[in-house]
C-alpha cells in the first residue's frame, strides 16, 4: 500500500486564517464605494451603511441555518411583512404595549418556523415547496388581517429600534441602535453555530442526513430548529424594517431571495453541508454594498437586477471552479 507522503497527524498546523470569499468581495465593493464617494469611508456613514444593511444581514444569518441543513426558507420575506403589519395593528400607537407586542411577534415567528419545520421533517414536503406555501399563506394572512393597507401607527419606542442613532459616541462618532441589534444577532447566530453543538449537527445533517441519522443525530429536530431560527431572524429583521421606515404592506418583499443570494455569495453551499455565519454576514454586506455602489453609479434601477444576477452566477461559478481545481 502506497500512501501519499503525510505529515504526522499529531503535528497540528497553525490555525488557518480562513479568508471568507464574501469578505474579499465586500472589501472590494466597499473600496469602490469609497473611491466614488469618499465620505462613505467616514465612520458615520459606515455606521449608517450597517444600519441599513442590518435587516438583510440578519435575514441571511437565519437563512444560513436552513441552508446548512440542506433546505431553503422562502417564507422569511412574508414573515417580515407580517411582523411589520402585525406590530402596527397590535401596538396601535400605544408605546406601553411595544415590548409585549414584540414578545408576541416572536411567538408568532416561532410558530411559523415550527410549521415549516414539521411539514418538511414529517410530511416530507421539500422545503422549497413548503416555504413557498407558507410564503403565500403568511402573506395572505398579513394582508387579510390589515385589510391590505397599513393600519395603525408604530410608536417611537418601536421605531427607534430601526431608527435611533446615538450621536457623539467616542471613536465611531455615531452609533445606530440597529447596528447594535445587528451585532447582537450576529453574535447569537455565531454562538448557535459555534458555541453549541448545534452547528456541527446542522452541517452533518445538510451534508448527509442519512449518515447523521444513523449516527444518532436528531435529524428532524435539527431541521425544525433551523426553520425556527430562520423565522426568528425574519421577525427581528421585520422589527428593524418597521423601525427604519415605518409600516408598509411590502416591507419584506423579495428579501428571501436576497438572503439566499447573500449566503451563496458568501460561500455557503446550497443543499447543505458547507458555510459559516461569516458567509451570511459578509455575503449580505457584499450584496448590500453592491446595491449601494450601483445606486452611486446612477445606473438605471433595472440594470441593477442584471448585475446582481451576474454577480450571483459568477460567485457560485467561481467557488465551483475552486472546488474542482482542488480535487
Amino acid at each position, binding site marked *: 500500500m502506497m500512501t501519499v507522503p503525510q505529515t504526522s497527524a499529531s503535528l497540528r498546523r497553525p490555525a488557518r486564517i480562513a479568508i471568507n470569499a464574501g469578505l474579499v468581495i465586500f472589501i472590494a465593493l466597499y473600496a469602490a464605494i469609497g473611491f466614488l464617494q469618499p465620505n462613505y469611508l467616514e465612520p458615520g456613514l459606515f455606521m449608517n451603511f450597517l444600519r441599513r444593511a442590518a435587516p438583510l444581514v440578519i435575514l441571511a444569518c437565519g437563512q444560513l441555518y436552513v441552508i446548512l441543513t*440542506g433546505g431553503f426558507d422562502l417564507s422569511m420575506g412574508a414573515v417580515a411583512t407580517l411582523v411589520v403589519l402585525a406590530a402596527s395593528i397590535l401596538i396601535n400607537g400605544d408605546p406601553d404595549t411595544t415590548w409585549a407586542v414584540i414578545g408576541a411577534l416572536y411567538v408568532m415567528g416561532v410558530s411559523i418556523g415550527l410549521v415549516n419545520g414539521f411539514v418538511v421533517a414529517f410530511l416530507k414536503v421539500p422545503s422549497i415547496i413548503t416555504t413557498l406555501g407558507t*410564503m403565500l399563506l403568511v402573506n395572505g394572512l398579513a394582508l387579510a388581517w390589515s385589510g391590505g393597507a397599513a393600519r395603525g401607527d408604530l410608536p417611537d419606542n418601536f421605531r427607534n429600534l430601526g431608527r435611533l442613532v446615538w450621536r457623539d459616541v467616542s471613536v465611531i462618532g455615531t452609533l445606530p441602535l440597529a447596528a447594535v441589534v445587528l451585532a447582537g444577532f450576529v453574535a447569537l447566530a455565531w454562538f448557535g453555530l459555534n458555541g453549541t453543538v448545534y452547528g456541527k449537527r446542522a452541517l452533518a445533517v445538510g451534508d448527509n442526513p442519512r449518515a447523521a441519522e444513523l449516527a444518532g443525530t436528531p435529524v428532524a429536530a435539527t431541521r425544525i430548529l433551523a426553520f425556527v431560527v430562520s423565522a426568528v431572524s425574519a421577525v427581528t429583521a421585520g422589527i428593524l424594517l418597521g423601525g427604519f421606515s415605518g409600516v408598509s404592506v411590502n416591507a419584506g418583499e423579495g428579501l428571501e431571495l436576497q438572503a439566499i443570494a447573500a449566503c451563496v455569495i458568501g460561500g455557503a453551499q446550497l443543499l447543505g453541508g458547507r458555510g459559516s455565519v461569516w458567509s451570511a454576514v459578509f455575503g449580505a454586506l457584499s450584496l448590500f454594498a453592491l446595491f449601494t455602489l450601483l445606486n452611486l453609479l446612477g445606473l438605471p434601477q433595472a440594470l441593477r437586477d442584471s448585475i446582481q444576477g451576474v454577480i450571483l452566477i459568477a460567485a457560485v461559478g467561481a467557488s465551483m471552479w475552486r472546488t474542482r481545481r482542488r480535487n
Partner: protein
Amino acid sequence: MTTNIAKPKPAIPDLPVAVLLAGLSIGFFAVVALVTGETAQLSGEGIAGLLQRMVALGLVALGQTFVILVGSIDLSVAALISAVAVLASHVMQGDPAMMLPAVLLCLGFCAVVGFVNGALVAYGGINPLIVTLGTGLIIQGVLAASFGVLQGAVAREFQVIAYGSVLGVPYSLLLLATLSLAAGFVLDRTLFGARIYAVGGNPDGARLAGIRTERVILSAHMVASLFAGAAGLYLAARLQSGTPWIGRDGIYDLESIAVTVIGGTILAGGKGGVAGTLAGVLLFATLDAGFNMLGIDAFLKQVLRGAIVIAAVAVHAVRTKGHVA
C-alpha cells in the same frame, strides 16, 4: 425455487395522482358552481373559459416538468415570458408581416437562454437554482431597463391564437392540448424522453449506461425555455402587448414548479410526467374560478392557496422514505 415473482405495477406511475387530482378539481368546480347557482359555468362556454385559465401556466409548467424530471429546475421562466411577450409586441408593432420573424426571433432568444442555463448547469456544475435565478434577474433587468416605457402591439391576426376558436373550442386550448400531447409523447415514446428519465433518476447510472448526461440536461433546459417562450407568445397574443412585468406578476416561476410537484413529479427527478402536471394546473384553474364564484376575498384566497399547495404535495410526499430537504 426463486420466490420473488414481481407483481406488475402500472407502467405510468403518475397516472393515479393525475386522475385523482383532476377528479377532485372538477368535482370542486362542479359543486361550487351548483351551490352558488352559477350553473352557466358548467356549460360548454363556461368549461372552455375554465380551461383557458390553464393555458399560460400550463405551457410554462410543461417545460418546467422537463427540467424537474431531469433533476434540475428553472426559475428564469417568469422573466423569459416577459421578455418574449415584450419582444413579440415590439417586433410586430401591429404588422402582420412581422409575425413570423417575431415568433422566430422570440423562440431563437428562448433557445439561447435555455442553452445558457443548461450549459451553466450541466457543464459549469453550478446549482440550477442559482443559475436560473441569476439569468432571470439578468433578463428582467435588461428588459426593464430598455423596454420599460415601450409601447408596441402584436398584430391583430396574431391575436387569433388567443381569441379565435373552431367549433367553440378556442385555438389556445388546442395549442395547449397539442403541446401537452407532444410533450407527453416525447417523454413517453421517444429516445429523448427515456434519456430524461434516466438522467433524472440516476445520473451516475445513466452516465455508466453511456448517456451523455450533460447534453440531456442542456436539452431539457432548452425545452423549458421554449415552452416559456410559447407561454410568452400566447400571453402577447392574449394581452395584445407585453409589459416587462407580466411574467413576474403571474408568478409563473414558482407556480409552475408548484403545479409540477403537486402533479407528482419529484424534485429529485426521474419520476413524474405531463399528466400530473396538467392535473396540477387544472387544480389551480379551478381554484381561481371556484374562489371567484364563492366571492372569497383576495387575501384569504392567497392563504388558502398556500395551504393547498402544501397539503397537495404532502399527500404523496408523506410516504417518502428517507429525508427530503
